[in-house]
């Protein structure tokens, strides 16, 4: 017997349900997906800006030498010429910003005159042989390094 239209009715309704589902999905998509998603690739371009917007903690030596020209000149003449200021002095963007704003707060602490040096210069068989290194237990074990290496920016003993 040939199927009549009323025999298809339930199938049409089921198909209608699917269409409603797909439409809902499409509406949800237009509501929730960021407008420019896919502009540079399969990601949200806003994330690029988001990644650029993190606060900066290390000012960078280019900023330090603007004010601290004396130390920069001393350094340029010695073996620490390529050591950045913040390698020893720590993160100082706050200090740079405070100075720019005209405040005297956020004055950085002086690095420890022994611990700071020991971190790099402790002798180790794993370090490249050409790198200047000493055994802290034998090389002036008591005193601060600055007792002899008076000017850390140019640590050569005069």
């Amino acid at each position: 017997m040939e199927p009549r239209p009323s025999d298809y009715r339930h199938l049409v309704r089921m198909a209608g349900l699917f269409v409603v589902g797909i439409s809902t999905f499409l509406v949800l998509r237009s509501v929730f997906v960021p407008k420019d998603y896919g502009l540079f690739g399969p990601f949200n371009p806003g994330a690029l800006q988001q990644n650029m917007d993190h606060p900066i903690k290390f000012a960078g030596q280019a900023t330090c030498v603007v004010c601290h020209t004396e130390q920069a000149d001393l350094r340029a003449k010695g073996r620490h010429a390529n050591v950045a200021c913040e390698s020893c002095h720590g993160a100082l963007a706050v200090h740079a910003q405070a100075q720019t704003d005209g405040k005297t707060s956020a004055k950085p602490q002086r690095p420890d005159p022994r611990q700071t040096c020991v971190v790099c210069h402790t002798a180790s068989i794993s370090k490249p042989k050409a790198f200047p290194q000493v055994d802290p237990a034998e090389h002036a074990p008591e005193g601060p390094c600055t007792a002899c290496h008076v000017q850390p920016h140019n640590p050569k003993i005069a």
Partner: protein
Amino acid sequence: MNQDRRTFLGHTGKLLVLTAAAAAAWEHVLAGAPENAPTYNTKEHWWGMAIDIEKCIGCGTCVRACKTENDVPIEDKYFRTWVERYVVDIRDLEHPHVESPNGGYAGFHEREVKDPNYKMFFVPKLCNHCTHSPCVQVCPVGATFESPDGVVLVDRQYCLGCRYCVQACPYGCRFIDPRVETVDKCSLCYHRITKGMTTACCETCPTGARKLADLKDPKDPIHAFLRDHKVQVLKPQMATGAKMYYNGLDGSVR
């Protein structure tokens, strides 16, 4: 009401609902405008890094700087960059002894092994910002992606925390930030390099073992570095297109 009228009303009702839905959808599509394009031009840069094993002294300054700069959790389970020490018996190159105490955060304790059969060196590691990145490939929603200037970044607002990318990274450079339950990893200090600065690790490295490289800049020292040294990337057999180039990378390095 007879069957035919009921059917007709049913069809019309459905049609109206669908048209309304379609109209709403189209409105949303038309109304949106792309966000402001960043002022830094991504097309002018292609970022990488030159790492010289022969210069690394394992001081761990880079690890500390990175944790400070990028607000990485301080525990010893989460690292955007870390340093490994290799103690290699030259009679058994395939099975080195490797250690990374707290990722090298406080440097390394001394190991006085003056045996001539051993060689030791440090290897700093970080995200390799691969051009054919397996982590980008598997992310189900595009929350990790390669920026147009070659940096693999994470979209923290979009990440589901499914951890598929952590599984897919051959280098172990990704982790889940427990404070926000999304993935985190080295971003090549994107917030710094897009402002003309260098990364925190390269800034503070006292020996110049790590140097940020812009491969699209003809004046960048990376070109001489690549030309004049025998360079390697980590796990080249994975063909990830890694852009962290190592000079002096021993065959025993994993």
